């Protein structure tokens, strides 16, 4: 918490020279929750300088995407921010829909909103409980994790996978949800608030937790904007920018919700913004469950990108041809360039897609929020204690998969 270098301690003459020691934090340190390396120059317990090295799990996603047909890029996006993969999947689908000029039915929009808000809850829940762990409160983490498990059960019901979901298709969902899925979502919405309230009671007004996190790793609103911060980290600094409100996608304009903002951009504010966003996400899910149109299909009419039902594939020539063409990626795509962004778990997740009309993108760039805001980390931790640097990192929600692409 000490923000300035200790200059008042002057050793007596001829005793010793002031010297810095170098400390390697990472690459695989249990407290960094991912593959991050920071070479710290330490003055005792105070961080004098930090040099982050990134790229340990770089997997060349942008190059890979230049060789893959559009529907095969979805599994790549899973591996960006793997705490909330469905948001990445839908973000990519919506980018392609924007390029194709497809309008998705309201029902599919609302289904997407439910899934995206569930995954936002699971993302924030991991981040916040990990801040608890790093400050020494293991209970919240262990207790709240069963609720992430329940969210993953819902994902499993819908797409068959839990973590790397590959959920949905370009144009909507591949099949209608089962009635049990709606029951599961409803029971989550009914029962989760109690657990979240208990988690909040455990930490939010906890004296030890507050002493530990308030004024730890702060960033001002001006600095955050200069460093292109987005998402909860920017809102914690006091800027009310949320892509869901600024440029609504997937019918977010139909829902009423608040954008929580903080003031000082420190670890406590980031934690509290995420806490309140979870409550808002629950509100959005409730509204979406209530307002979802019943008699619409769950996907847009895009036979070029949407696998036909299996029974038709086996009995019908056209369906078989389409099935084969889609799997091999032999589809006509208009030329053009699109930028589409969604509010991911930790910021504005953007897709810059350039198509030359071929079967694969000519160029695809992911605007990865972590990669952009993690560069402010050395500045945020300069002059603070080593243990503060750890909780600053975990409260920034830096995900190695997204950082390194």
């Amino acid at each position, binding site marked *: 918490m000490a923000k300035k270098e200790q200059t008042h301690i002057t050793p007596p003459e001829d005793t010793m020279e002031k010297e810095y020691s170098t400390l390697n934090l990472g690459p695989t340190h249990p407290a960094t929750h991912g593959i991050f390396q920071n070479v710290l120059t330490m003055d005792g317990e105070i961080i004098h300088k930090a040099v982050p090295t990134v790229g340990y799990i770089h997997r060349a996603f942008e190059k890979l995407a230049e060789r893959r047909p559009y529907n095969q890029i979805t599994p790549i996006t899973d591996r960006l921010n793997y705490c909330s993969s469905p948001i990445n999947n839908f973000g990519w689908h919506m980018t392609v829909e924007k390029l194709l000029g497809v309008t998705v039915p309201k029902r599919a929009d609302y289904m997407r909103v439910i899934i995206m808000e569930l995954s936002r809850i699971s993302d924030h829940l991991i981040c916040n409980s990990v801040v608890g762990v790093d400050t020494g409160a293991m209970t919240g983490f262990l207790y709240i994790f069963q609720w992430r498990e329940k969210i993953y059960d819902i994902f499993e019901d819908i797409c068959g996978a839990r973590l790397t979901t590959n959920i949905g298709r370009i144009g909507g969902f591949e099949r209608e949800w089962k009635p049990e899925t709606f029951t599961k979502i409803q029971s989550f919405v009914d029962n989760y608030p109690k657990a979240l309230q208990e988690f909040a009671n455990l930490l939010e007004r906890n004296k030890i937790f507050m002493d530990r996190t308030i004024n730890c790793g702060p960033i001002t609103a001006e600095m955050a904007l200069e460093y292109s911060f987005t998402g909860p980290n920017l809102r914690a600094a006091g800027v009310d920018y949320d892509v869901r409100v600024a440029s609504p996608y997937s019918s977010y304009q139909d829902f009423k919700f608040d954008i929580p903002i903080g003031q000082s951009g420190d670890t406590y504010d980031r934690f509290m913004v995420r806490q309140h966003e979870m409550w808002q996400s629950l509100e959005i899910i409730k509204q979406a469950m209530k307002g979802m149109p019943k008699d619409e299909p769950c996907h847009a009419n895009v036979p070029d990108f949407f696998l036909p039902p299996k029974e038709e594939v086996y009995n019908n020539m056209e369906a078989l041809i389409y099935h084969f063409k889609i799997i091999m990626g032999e589809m006509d795509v208009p030329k053009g360039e699109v930028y589409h962004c969604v509010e991911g778990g930790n910021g504005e997740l953007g897709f810059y897609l*350039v198509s030359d009309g*071929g079967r694969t993108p000519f160029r695809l760039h992911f605007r990865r929020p972590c990669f952009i805001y993690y560069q402010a980390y050395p500045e945020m931790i300069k002059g603070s204690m080593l243990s503060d640097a750890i909780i600053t990192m975990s409260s920034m929600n830096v995900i190695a998969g997204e950082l390194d692409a």
Partner: protein
Amino acid sequence: MSDLLNKINETLNVKFPGVVEVFETTYDLPAFTINKDHIHEVLAFLKNDPELNFHFLTDLTGIQTADEKQLGVIYHLHNMPKNLRVRVKTFFPMDKPEIPTATDLWPGANWMERETYDFFGVRFKGHPNMTRILNVDEMDIFPLRKEYPLEDQTRDDKSDKMFGR
């Protein structure tokens, strides 16, 4: 919205005559192609002009043109109060891939420019630390250029005649 965009176009044309090479609107996002010699002035103007106020650098990335003769850098700027986005592009020949850095305007451009250098070999003049970021330092190619295909071209057990490029 389109009035304002035409106004931006006019303002740029008056302020920097001949600098805007192409002005187009693709999928609701206006895009300006700017002459590479003036890119820094135009970015600084877009950022600091009180009316335009494109104060937020959303994204910075590189691209190679289809004829493999030019490289480009693409900026996405955002005016948050008016919720207006703009795309600024600049292209320059492959044999001299050098443009001025934007790190003096936005400190957040630092890693994005390093990433662009890492993958396309674009050198940003005046950048504080122009080194590779995601790839290993020893790498001697710029992997996102089209001249480096994804798969090993010496392989003969796999034919891509029918599919793929």
